[in-house]
């Protein structure tokens, strides 16, 4: 996906860019309102992540003119203010959602998915791998013409595997990606989800194999 990140704090912006690029997203960074307007006028983004307090103005002003231009690109506001006083104003101005700093990237991803789903995501969101067609937005998996609805963790797990096929993921890393940091789960919890995914994949030419002592890998058989 292609993101525009509007954030004036250099450190945070770099970290967020790193983190999003890690998942294979394309991200442009605008440090202020005028740059953001320039960027959004010249390129098509799937989603804009917008900070509120910016050096040359208020993120809400950008939001207002963004909506006035009839730009349909969804906007998720990154707010560092009080939960209560800010939310109403931001949503009223046409933001699709907001998230409070500091944020969990799984939550950010979940919100992005929800926003894009609401906006009617495009077919380009469908990944193909082997004879699988995987739509992360709709949360569906087509195996051999049969469509299965995936539950949240199955979907996220499949997304991890499918984004870098043939790579081995350790259980520990998968736990970090699937569970929030405040949940105490053992690495064996991953086995449940891998087991479920394997059930969905039965009958396709894609399999998740166990690499003893290292973890799991998805590959075409």
């Amino acid at each position, binding site marked *: 996906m292609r993101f525009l990140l509007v954030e004036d704090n250099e450190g945070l912006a770099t*970290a967020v860019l*790193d*983190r999003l690029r890690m998942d294979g997203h394309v991200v442009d960074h605008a440090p202020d309102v005028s740059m953001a307007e320039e960027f959004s006028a010249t390129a098509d983004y799937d989603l804009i992540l917008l900070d509120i307090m910016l050096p040359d103005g208020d993120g809400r002003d950008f939001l207002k003119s963004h909506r006035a231009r009839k730009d349909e690109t969804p906007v998720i506001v990154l707010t560092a203010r009080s939960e209560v006083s800010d939310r109403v104003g931001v949503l009223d101005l046409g933001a699709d959602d907001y998230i409070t700093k*500091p944020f969990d990237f799984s939550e950010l991803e979940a*919100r992005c998915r929800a926003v894009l789903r609401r906006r009617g995501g495009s077919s380009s969101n469908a990944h193909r791998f082997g004879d699988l067609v995987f739509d992360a937005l709709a949360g569906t998996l087509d195996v051999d013409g049969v469509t299965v609805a995936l539950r949240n963790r199955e979907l996220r797990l499949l997304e991890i595997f499918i984004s870098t096929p043939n790579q081995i993921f350790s259980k*520990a890393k998968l736990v970090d990606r699937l569970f*929030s940091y405040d949940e105490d789960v053992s690495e064996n919890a991953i086995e449940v989800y891998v087991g479920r995914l394997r059930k969905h994949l039965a009958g396709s030419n894609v399999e998740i194999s166990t690499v003893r002592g290292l973890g799991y890998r998805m590959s075409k058989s």
Partner: protein
Amino acid sequence: MSELPPSTGSIRRRLTLQLMSGAAILATMLFFVVLNVARDLAESSQDNILFASATSILESAAVQGDEVVVDIPYGALSMLGNVSDDRVFYRVMAGPMLLTGYDNLPEIVRGRAEPSGFLTASYGGEDIRMVEVSRRLSLNGQAVDVAVAVAQTRNGQAETVAQMTRVALFSGAGFFLVAAVMAVLTAQSSIRPLNRLAGSVSRRGPKDMRPVAGPVPSEMVPLVTSLNRFMARLKTSLSRSEDFIAEAAHRVRTPLATVRTQAEVVLRRVDRDENRQSLREMIRAIDESSRAAGQLLDHAMVTFRTDHLEREHINLADLAEELVARLTPVAELKELQLVTKLDAGCEIYGDAILIQNAVRNILDNAIKYSQTDREILLEVLKGGERSILRVTDQAGGFPDALTTKLTERFARGVNSEGTVGSGLGLTIAKEVVEAHGGQLLLQNTDRGDGACVTLSFP
């Protein structure tokens, strides 16, 4: 609500009392003036008649041969007889000699030049008013003073005075009554602009800091001017402190977000278990501090707002729906189901932002403490006259002893070990509900597998 300042009494009452005591003094003065005038009038009219009577007797005095003869005309005494049953006395003297009448009537001492004199005296046990007139006649070539004294008891006059006193009393009392009514009305009308000002200021919403613009009497201009100046200062300092909180939150949360994101990035890159463990600890600590900061800010805001609720009509079902939409992505991450059972007709009159905040805190808790793959039920229903919003989870429930303690600030359930949270959520919810005159009820489900938080609004 704020405490009332000590009162130095009512201006209206003071004004009414002052006006009324003025009226009472004036009414008393009126009474005495009328009484005096009446008494003088009664006396002078008696004097006039006495004088006329005495004069007409004196007119009839004449010298016949070598003696003075008086023929008392009938009318002279009858003109005195018309008032009540007063008795009349007379005495006619020619020089030192009594011609006729009562010898023992009191003497009136007067100067030689004065032809007449009046006296009020006591005679035979009764008050009398007496006049004496004199004329000089010539008898045998010698001058003789003929003096006619006529006296009358004062019963009639006393009766007139008593009647006049009654009239004076009634008119004084009437004057006082009219003045008292006017005093009350005047006090009311002069206090009315003050009441109007107080009303217009207290009817304002909590954020309405506009200056008072309506016309006021000139005496109130300094008060309104300083009130307006005070509100301007308050507005500045309020917006300054709001800006300060926003700025503080921004300053704290942005670096926290940076560190958290970097930790996540690094966590993806490192393989060693010890490093990964400390990174996870770090992220948890960040989450805990930012959640605590958020809840403290929420709590401060809730405390501020519960003093001045910004009420509107809220459809609880709509509010619940909006919250569920907002929280579903977070619940889905743990594969939790947010199930709703909403009665669309449930309306309350309250502060939407506060109630939303309260319910969000309860749902946050339910999500936080639930294990994967559970259900959280959000119900909106009518319970008699009350509107009820209930959150039921399957997160293990509250320990019995904790249900009352839980809503006190910072108390946390035992299930919370390892779960991020500052425990302020239920405190916030309780304060919001109670500010709306409602109740917060903590229970465990019948099956004992979860907690049930009920918010009931009147």
